[in-house]
């Protein structure tokens, strides 16, 4: 591969010290993910997929090994530098949506732009556009408790997209949704991928993982299998 991968993990290790014991969550992950890939990370609980997600999302730093994102080594960055990277390069979608309950959909989507230092007017425009992209143009001024689960997750996706990130990082995005709504949300991800978005998704449901074009399975903190499906 001549082109540099978007994400490159080399010998990535993450240990937790609990009293005298050392717990290995990740034991030397080797993984490369290119631009516009649609990857599902699977594995049983305790396999390290959440830790991997946190490290890729720059919420956590590896104990050893290297993490290159977009040609920059982020594994040794300070807290504030990591916050910058999260703000610019990564869009999070959580299982429990994690919207601010007292803020409107529009304000929730504006949040990343506030931390990016975008002007109020530009913020409003970009947030409205992102909400339109996920089909919520008519729900901008609703609060999360006035929205359905699927709508909330769409708001969260809009929030993840608003900064035009390199990676869309989804952690069990359909875990709190019924099957019909799950299909809707997966359709949104598929659409975004078609538009060129790199999508990385953690899930333990095989039928959700089936939407991805590449499935990486973790077991006991190492990559167990890595299979690329031919485009359907």
């Amino acid at each position, binding site marked *: 591969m001549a082109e540099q991968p978007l994400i490159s993990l080399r010998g990535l290790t993450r240990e937790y010290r609990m009293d005298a014991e050392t717990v290995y969550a990740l034991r030397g992950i080797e993984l490369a993910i290119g631009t516009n890939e649609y990857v599902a990370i699977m594995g049983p609980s305790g396999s390290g997929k959440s830790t991997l997600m*946190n490290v890729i999302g720059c919420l956590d730093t590896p104990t050893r090994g290297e993490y290159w994102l977009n040609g920059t080594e982020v594994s040794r960055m300070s807290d504030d530098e990591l*916050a910058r990277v999260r703000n610019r390069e990564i869009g*999070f979608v959580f299982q429990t949506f994690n919207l601010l309950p007292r803020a409107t959909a529009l304000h929730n989507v504006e*949040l*990343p732009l506030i*931390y990016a230092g975008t002007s109020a007017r530009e913020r409003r425009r970009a947030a409205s556009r992102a909400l339109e992209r996920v089909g919520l143009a008519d729900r901008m001024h609703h609060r999360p408790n006035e929205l359905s689960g699927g709508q909330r997750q769409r708001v969260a996706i809009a929030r993840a997209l608003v900064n035009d990130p390199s990676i869309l990082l989804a952690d069990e995005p359909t875990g709190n949704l019924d099957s019909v709504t799950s299909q809707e949300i997966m359709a949104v991800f598929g659409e975004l991928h078609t538009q060129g978005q790199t999508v990385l998704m953690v899930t333990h449901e095989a039928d959700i993982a089936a939407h991805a074009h590449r499935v990486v399975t973790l077991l006991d903190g190492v990559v167990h299998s890595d299979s690329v499906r031919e485009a359907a």
Partner: protein
Amino acid sequence: MTSLFEGVGIALSSLRANKARAALTILGVAIGVMVVMVIGSMITGINRGVEDIFNQLGPRTFFVFRYFQAGIQVSDGSDEMSPWRRNPPLTVAEAERIRQLESIGFIVVDEGSSADVEYGNRQLESVPVRGRGPQWVQVGGGDIAPGRSFTSVESAASARVAVVNEKLASELFALLDPIGKRIKIAGVPYQVVGVFIPPPDIFGEGNRPEVVIPHNTFEKHVPYWRGWMDFLVSPSPDASVQDAIDDVTGSLRAARGLRPAEENTFSIVTQDKLLDSWNQVTGMFFLVMIALSSVGLMVGGVGVVAIMMISVTERTREIGVRKALGARRREILWQFLVEAATLTVIGGAIGMLVGGLISLGVATFTPLPAKVPLISVVAALGMSALTGIAFGLYPAARAARLDPVEALRHE
């Protein structure tokens, strides 16, 4: 930086969510600020009143006292603790000497006592009686209407004429015309020649009956505690205050035969000096009150710590989300500091409002011209914001240091 408005908005909505807790915190700060405001306005009022009095005296008038010391004096009766015993009383002869000086415009002797005043079968007990030189109205301010003050001739002849103040006139004569009425002071008959309207003053002296008679008459007919005569001195228009003071000092020292090494056996006090000593007293008072009211702010501050700790714990997940979306430590810190400061500034504003109303009430219903000085508005708001920031710092720093992974996992 997160916008200030957003921080204030978040703060207000979290206040709505925890009304009782917020109210207690706000109350503490409000009481502290209110005390500062009320005390500040009263001291400003008192000072204004004092300055008014001095302004009416004419800014150049100064006093000669037998003894004067700034501040509050305590005496146990011993010579050691009663330094005025070294000083002989001021005398009329000394006043006459001073009157001859070129730099002196006029001088008024002033001596006081109290006596019973009668009119017909009406009697008022222990009315303050002052014996003064004929020019006392020019020096002391105020006005005589109706009627007149006593003349130099009456003064020299120890005439039994009296000027009563408005209060005494209304108590003694009710609606009758006071001029020409015959009254008795300490059992001696006098004729009322004028009604004195005192300059407005904050100590409410105008509300007490008072009578002024010529000093010579006073010495002859009124029982009094001898030895405490004062002089009020006005420099002549073309002499400076300092020249006049120097001349008075020289004249009195010569009259008393003091040698150059000896200290003055009298006190000359300018209005500046009186104001200074006054300001010293009110300054101390102010400091004590500030200390007391900062206790109120402290109580509010402890409340701020408590409510903010709860706020941080309750919103751990929100902090995690904000960090995931790119908030840096200082942005989280800022958010919670703004929230804490909003809380205390609301308290400060309420305290200011209540304090302002109380001051207004004082100014309306008492003679004290209480006025809220601009500086104390600024200080009150500043202090309450500072309290919020100081006491909000610890909870805010805790929020800023939260690990995003842990925070997102928090239920």
